[in-house]
């Protein structure tokens, strides 16, 4: 699936819930399914700044595509990083760099997460873009 297709399906999934509790329940579920980072990378070098809870992110390139793994000590944060991983993992650096991130507004994540988390979310996106930039070409 393309990044756009994955984003659309996430937006559709989230739009099924009108209640915020259900959306959080879904994020928590996503947190529990997050592809977990190899313990050797769970250190300060892979820590993303700007998140109030700690988030570690690792990326590797196979066959021209980037695969992300992550972890966080907070499950909602882990859910958010997994949401981004679902969108970006298995995509080419060029596609990641060209991605339109406005779907975050559509599912209300940016708007409804608390400001510190929202900053964390932006830091996560930035970090993934940074990996894509370094691994491009």
């Amino acid at each position, binding site marked *: 699936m393309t990044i756009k297709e994955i984003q659309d399906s996430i937006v559709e999934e989230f739009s099924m819930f009108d209640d*915020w*509790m259900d959306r*959080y*329940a879904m994020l*928590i579920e996503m947190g529990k399914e997050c592809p977990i980072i190899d313990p050797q990378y769970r250190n300060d070098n892979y820590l993303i700044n700007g998140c*109030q*809870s*700690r988030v570690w992110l690792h990326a590797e390139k196979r066959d021209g595509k980037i695969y992300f793994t992550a972890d966080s*000590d*907070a*499950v*909602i*944060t882990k859910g958010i990083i997994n949401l981004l991983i679902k969108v970006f993992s298995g995509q080419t650096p060029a596609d990641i760099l060209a991605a339109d991130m406005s779907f975050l507004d559509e599912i209300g994540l940016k708007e409804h*997460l*608390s400001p510190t*988390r929202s900053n964390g979310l932006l830091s996560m996106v930035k970090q993934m873009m940074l990996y894509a930039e370094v691994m491009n070409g």
Partner: protein
Amino acid sequence: MNHLDIDKIRAQFPVLDQQVYGKPLVYFDNAATTQKPLCVIERERDYYLHENCNIHRGVHYLSQMATEAYENARKTVAQFINARQPQEIVFTRGTTESLNLLATSLGQLLVGEGDKVVVSAMEHHSNMVPWQQFLDRINRTELDRINKINRINNLLVIRMDKNGVLDLNHYEELLKQRPKIVSIAHISNTLGTVNPIKEMIAMAHKYGIPVVVDGAQSMAHQVIDVQDLDCDFYVFSGHKMYAPMGIGGLYGKMEWLEKMPPYQFGGEMVDTVSFEKTTFNKVPFKFEAGTPNVGAALGLETAVKFIQSFDRQEVEAYEDELLRYATEQLSGIEGMRFIGQAPKRNGLVSFVIDGIHPYDLGTIIDKMGVAVRTGHHCAEPVMTFFGIPGTVRASFAMYNTKEEIDIFVKAVDKAANMLR
């Protein structure tokens, strides 16, 4: 039963009467800042509507009126904490500025190279970092600077136990090392521990060491008598005691304030000025450089009168009952672990739930309309001590109710079930 009319009190705080995410707001973040009663808001508004003027310098009517009002506010605050004279009150922006003033000015007066300062293991960053950085500044040599070596090991830290109680034997040991200053919290912002400061002050005085008390968490809740405590300094923030933000105070014994060098320089704090020499104004003006926050000082005065309009013992008993009830109700939740279980606690309950990150819990209960603080509460060393990333902290004020505690406890329980 007490005679406080909580409904009537709540009517004074319009901000409480609102919905967030479609749920009635439960405001339990009072240790961060309390809400402001109408009388305080109106006092500050009135000042800007009718009285606004720069003080201490105009000969004209408005300036004289504003000066008088500002100095009356000083008197009211002095009486509130039983200072000997109004001049012993220096208006500051709050506790943080007061402590920076002391670390700089009292530090400069008393602390030389190699000298030590005592704080406790439960201090807010505001009562630790200013001392730490001051000690580093005076002890680091040019070579240390090049090698990027910190010289902060002159900061002595009173140990605490697992319940969040300070070890007074260890304190005595530290005093024997003849530190120059002791600076301790009256009530811990993270653990709620009420420290035995009167006893601790007397212990330090036996060695001739002055004591600074961080009263940020106590002013709204307890009757403070600086003469009875015999503290050398007592610092506080207005915004944690129903007053506006941007105003606070520093009480200091006159004998100290007179000896201490100024903290900031500028207008108001000077006596005569030439390019060759400047002489400084007298206490407290020497410490109030620039135009002060007059409107907020008047708001602080009104907040003090607001607090004084109640029977303080009744308020204290009511708030203690809220704390007792919250602790009792929370303890039924699976995996509940209270952080800070000192026998004498005040105003707040701090906890973690096994396997659940405080941020997750705080995020979910926020959606249920409950405002608490999660995180390290500007006391990272305390979190390190307990081996946790942070806590959930619910802190109370006189306008809170048991019904709100019920909502809060239900929210915590529901969130915990979602997150497990």
